[in-house]
């Protein structure tokens, strides 16, 4: 798979370290346990497009939010992860 890092361009996915679902939002410390359960453990696990974080470890070291199709591995979009993504 080639991941289009916004800074480095198209790079082999072996340069990246996978960091999972990009849409998770860390709940407030005093949020109900159900929200923490959802954040820590429960996943949508779709078979279609999935937004996920890849850390460009052997490149610019930025986190990239990649939209990738789970059944074909086709990469549909890639952007720098904003502050809304999880920290890995």
């Amino acid at each position, binding site marked *: 798979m080639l991941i289009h890092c916004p800074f480095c361009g198209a790079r082999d996915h072996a340069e990246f370290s996978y960091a999972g679902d990009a849409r998770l939002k860390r709940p407030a410390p005093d949020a109900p346990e159900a929200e923490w359960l959802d954040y820590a453990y*429960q996943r949508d696990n779709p078979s279609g497009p999935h937004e996920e974080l890849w850390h460009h470890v052997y490149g610019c070291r930025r986190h990239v939010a990649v939209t990738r199709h789970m059944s074909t591995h086709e990469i549909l979009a890639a952007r720098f992860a904003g502050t809304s993504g999880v920290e890995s």
Partner: protein
Amino acid sequence: MPRYSALRLIREAFNRQSGWTPAWRDAEPKAGYDVVIVGGGGHGLSTAYYLAKLHGVRNVAVIEKGWIGGGNTGRNTTIIRSNYLLPENALFYEHCLKLWETLSLDLNFNVMFSSRGVLNLANSDAQMDAYARRGNAMRLSGIDSELLDRDQVRRMVPHLDFSPSARFPIYGGLLQPRGGTARHDAVAWGYARGASDLGVDIIQNCEVVGLRMGSAHIEGVETTRGFIAADRVGLAVAGRTSQVAAMAGLKLPIESHVLQAFVSEALKPFLDTVVTFGAGHFYISQSDKGGMVFGGDLDFYNSYASRGNMPMVEDVASAGMSLFPSLGPVRLLRSWGGIMDMTMDGSPIIGRTPIENLYINGGWCYGGFKATTGSGWVFAHTLATGEPHPLNAPFSLDRFATGRLIDDKGSGPYPWRH
């Protein structure tokens, strides 16, 4: 169903082999069943078999979207072991192993279970200490384990790299002599034959496309061959667990990942045990046909593609080469990928769901094959009685909410690291 025996082989030899019949009935779906099991792999079929045999529940259907055993049952490296650290895992997998030991006799079908031993290599002092601890924990759970030193490993597996320049010097290993391998196709066929013989309907080419929900329970399953009513529904769909559970509105602590496996061209007898390498991640055995069967890590990203990528092929091959340099000239025959339903603590989920008559058997990560026997055994108990057996009670879905996780490796909620 006529039994298989040596006498029958001889009789058929004089009878132009004309007396053999199909091993199981390819059934048409009825309007409804006491229990519908979604997924005709090893786990679903063994569940149906034990439901009919041990619990007298015979009005059972196993629904399979493709053909039986065509999913992960036929896409693994067939390793069987119970060498776990935590007591919940050790006791459950030991029960599985005990069932394996008598399975061919029980099913009257040769599953070619071979107790050739499973040897975990240690490549550092720290790993020797960790294996001493794991071996002792296993013995406390009543499971055989032997800590071997370097010379003992060398006598067992002389082809390993024992040279002074070895990239990973071998310090010793932890051996479970009763572990081994079995023939995966035969496991699916044997359970199917046994279950079908007891009255279970095995329905192939029938995909579940929806779960019909009542107010608080499930009325049945919508399939490509029509609606099938069910008093109880059990899911045993491996990598697709999240998607089928989503049909009932459930969100699970599972991610689907791809795991590759490989088989080489056939060699003369080379390796008579299973060797695993924990300093990297690699496991290898030799099939009865002579092929070297091996695998390593997941590809480390979510996937439903049933195929992996080249970096992991290189990683697995290099691990194999560092252990067995003499495998260098051997050519790969095939490689394949399977979809693993990886849970957040690396242990399976077997038991009840928030929906009254829906039960789940999934999250087998990449260790499901060895559990085929016991998984069906405890799931049959759960489906028949409505309550988990003490062996699968710790593997409940709600353990993620209550915090009673079973994380054998201690990796945390990163499913691709288990």
